[in-house]
């Protein structure tokens, strides 16, 4: 069972970026890269050698691995609909959020290893915007907790659809875009380093470490997609198979949503990003207040 779960996460994660790119290509009327493109990249990178900056310490290579482990563990805590979570206990939601934070710490640390201006810039942006994203994330989790009266993801993520669900969905979706450095926060496939966050941080990585980073990123994207879906859909009240299907469908919809937003939105100017994140935070906050009041009533 556990093996299956791990396989699901590890194996399916790289699909999402592929799908997103396909969607973008369709919208743009191109054929675009194959859906499995990322798999090919990962395999190739895994066999390549590594070019290491003269300034970098071994931590430069180790950090991506730790980050990947952190994300994997976080994913392990996220319940997959009827299958439940790999590990569930009181307060696991906090562990999940902080595992993602650990991953962020590692990537940012690694970015500063090389002493490159661009990577420092990227790291600064990553950790700074995370402050607002974190606030939004906690507001969302709190509203789920208040709504379901529980602090364990398994129960929190099968809520009865409440008044605040729509707000919550919108908020979480923006957080997803921000945390995974998608448009309008970041453009994964630009090549103008000045404008990048995540890509700027990994400029100097190559070979297996880069592969690990890319895979970790895709897994994080999947994690958020699952989280968003499960937070919105009342999976708990559906029969197992239907729930599984609903979950899969939800993830697919989120992916398409990301793809569409990337094709129709342009990257924002950096000074607008805090506004957008604040909006996400407010959305989550309102859903929290709705949940709180709803409980009182």
């Amino acid at each position, binding site marked *: 069972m556990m093996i299956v779960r791990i396989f699901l996460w590890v194996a399916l994660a790289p699909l999402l970026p592929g799908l997103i790119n396909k969607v973008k290509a369709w919208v743009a009327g191109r054929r675009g890269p194959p859906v499995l493109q990322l798999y090919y990249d990962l395999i190739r990178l895994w066999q390549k050698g590594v070019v290491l900056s003269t300034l970098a310490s071994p931590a430069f290579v180790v950090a991506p*691995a730790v980050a990947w482990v952190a994300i994997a563990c976080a994913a392990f805590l996220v319940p997959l609909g009827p299958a439940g979570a790999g590990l569930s206990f009181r307060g696991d939601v906090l562990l999940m*959020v902080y595992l993602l934070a650990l991953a962020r*710490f590692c990537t940012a640390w690694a970015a500063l290893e090389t002493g490159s201006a661009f990577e*420092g810039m990227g790291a600064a942006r990553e*950790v*700074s915007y995370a402050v607002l994203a*974190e*606030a939004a994330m906690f507001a969302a989790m709190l509203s789920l907790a208040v709504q379901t009266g529980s602090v364990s993801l398994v129960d929190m993520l099968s809520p009865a659809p409440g008044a605040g669900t729509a707000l919550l969905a919108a908020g979480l979706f923006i957080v997803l875009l921000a945390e995974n450095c998608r448009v309008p926060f970041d453009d994964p496939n630009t090549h103008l380093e000045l404008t990048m966050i995540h890509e700027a941080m990994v400029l100097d990585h190559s070979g297996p470490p880069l592969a690990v980073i890319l895979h970790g990123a895709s897994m994080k994207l999947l994690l958020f997609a699952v989280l968003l879906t499960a937070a919105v859909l009342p999976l708990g009240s559906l029969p197992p198979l239907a729930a599984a299907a609903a979950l899969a469908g939800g993830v697919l919809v989120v992916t398409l949503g990301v793809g569409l937003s990337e094709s129709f939105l342009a990257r924002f100017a950096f000074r607008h990003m805090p506004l957008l994140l604040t909006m996400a935070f407010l959305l989550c906050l309102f859903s929290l207040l709705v949940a*709180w009041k709803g409980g009182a009533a």
Partner: protein
Amino acid sequence: MSGGLVFAAVCLLAAMAMAQRSTRASFALTLAGTLAGLVASLTILLGPDDWEWTGAFFLGGERVHLRLDGVSAIFLVLVCVIGGAGAAYAREYWSDSENPATAARGRVWWNALILSMGLVLMISNGLHFLMAWEAFALCGYFLITLDNRRPEVRKAGWLYLASSHVGTLALFAFFVMLATHTGTWNLGPVRDVPPPLFWLALFGFGMKAGFFPFHIWLPSAHANAPSHVSAIMSGVAIKMGVYGIVRFGGWLPVPANAGHVVIGLGAASAVLGIAFAMAQNDIKRLLAYCSVENIGVILIGLGGALVARTHGNAAWGQLALAGALLHVWNHGLFKSLLFFGAGSVLHATGTREMSRLGGLWRSMPWTAGFFALGAVAVSGLPPLNGFASEWLIYLGLFEAATTRSGFAWAALPSAILLAMAGALALAAFVKAGGMIFLGTPRTKPAAHAQESRAGMLAPMALLAAACAVIGVAPGLVWPAIARAAGSWNPAWAVARTPFSTLGPAGFALAILAAVAGFWLWKKSRANGLRRDLTWDCGYRNPTSRMQYTSGSFAGISAGWFFWAFAPERKFRRPRGPFPSGSLRLERVSETVLERLIVPAGAIITRLSHAALGLQHGRLQAYILYLVAGLAALGIFVFLEGKP
């Protein structure tokens, strides 16, 4: 039990006596004393009953009365651990060879500080508490100003002394009122005193705890003190203020809204403290401000506990309290570790300015490693101890939220603010670690740094180990914490550990991370690992000046807290086709101090100079004053005596 404590006291006194004659003997005695104290406090924490001792003799007309219960023991453990580790660190860091004038004096005051803090924790008589409290404050002053030939040290020391005295006088009033109401100087749970008395205690102890806005003295004092002193001041001494608040929050009847106020103060000082930390360029100032944040974290937990206790001992209150108490330990450990690290850097390079450091991991790998570990811990990331305690506090707040009871509303904003503080802490310490240890050296001293000797590394290793152990096996310390929580509020005496799953999870995470990291390193080596210049978008000649600086790293978040920083800016734009010089200076001001306290002080100073103007030496005027006084008193008495 009593024997152990007496032994500890005797050892510390002997260490003070030996400080001049023999460094080694003095150190051995300090170590023995702290160990004895540690054992004693641990036996209290792991045993069911408290230790109490009533002396046969009187001081100042009051019988000497000591008590060591769960709450005191928690703090005493910290005192002993950091006291011992710091003494070890100081042997190298502040050695007789480098500071012949002050090393011995430092040892004397160090032991005096440990002793007085221990007494503060154990004394249960108001009069003697004040005595120990002042002794502790003065020891702190003399430690901070060890190197009092440097004017900035003197300034910082005076600021510390002055603000500490403000708190002390508030405590004078507090204890006298307490004694007047209860009719005795003995301390203990009391029922029939007016709740507002708690505010006085909160203020008096708050000045020492240094949470916003009473932190004015903290950054400069902790930045300018010798690093081992900064470590104990920041890791332990400010906890004495916390102890006072915990202690009397538990003993006094508190006002209905006390908990909410404490949570508010905590949240404010958590966010603002870490925001200021993020904006600092001086590593020790950064650490000092980070202490402000962590005190805020502790207060949030404590406030939650107060709210819960005033509303029928809600169970979640116990989690919050336990979190706060555990965070007292954790902050003590990793903050001392970080200050030791900063001290090593300062010792090796002679500067605290992060913009003058960089790339030190190459020359100081061990220091870099320990500092990185401390950074992970202070950012509250799993699997280290910082996460364990913050997790407890979060859990308490979340469970409070799930109750949806009206008085628990404060849990929502405080949880969110705590999260923001956590994220900012992460940013601040990525910046600190990166600027100091990563990239290329920015100056010559940084390039030619030397790794510290084992004498300084060993204490850091000890603290790092402690952080890791509490992180991966928080279950080990739970009984102690639960015991303390129980003695704070008997209603919370029994509790089963919430760490049953978290602990193993953390452990697994640690193992997995290690394995994965090792494996990836091996894999990369196997694939062939080539060293080359940083790929700076093709630029082939990167220099240290092209690195991202600490200022620019903090730029984004500094922009958000512009209103709080009120930075002083100097900005000369590059002009013309061939711009000559251009610069952009930005200094974050000590807002509360420079915008509030200093102006007020200036007004008072002007007043005093006006008054001195009256003492101008002309006798005729002096007699005129006398006559004026006579007339004034006459009129006063005339009006008074009329009825």
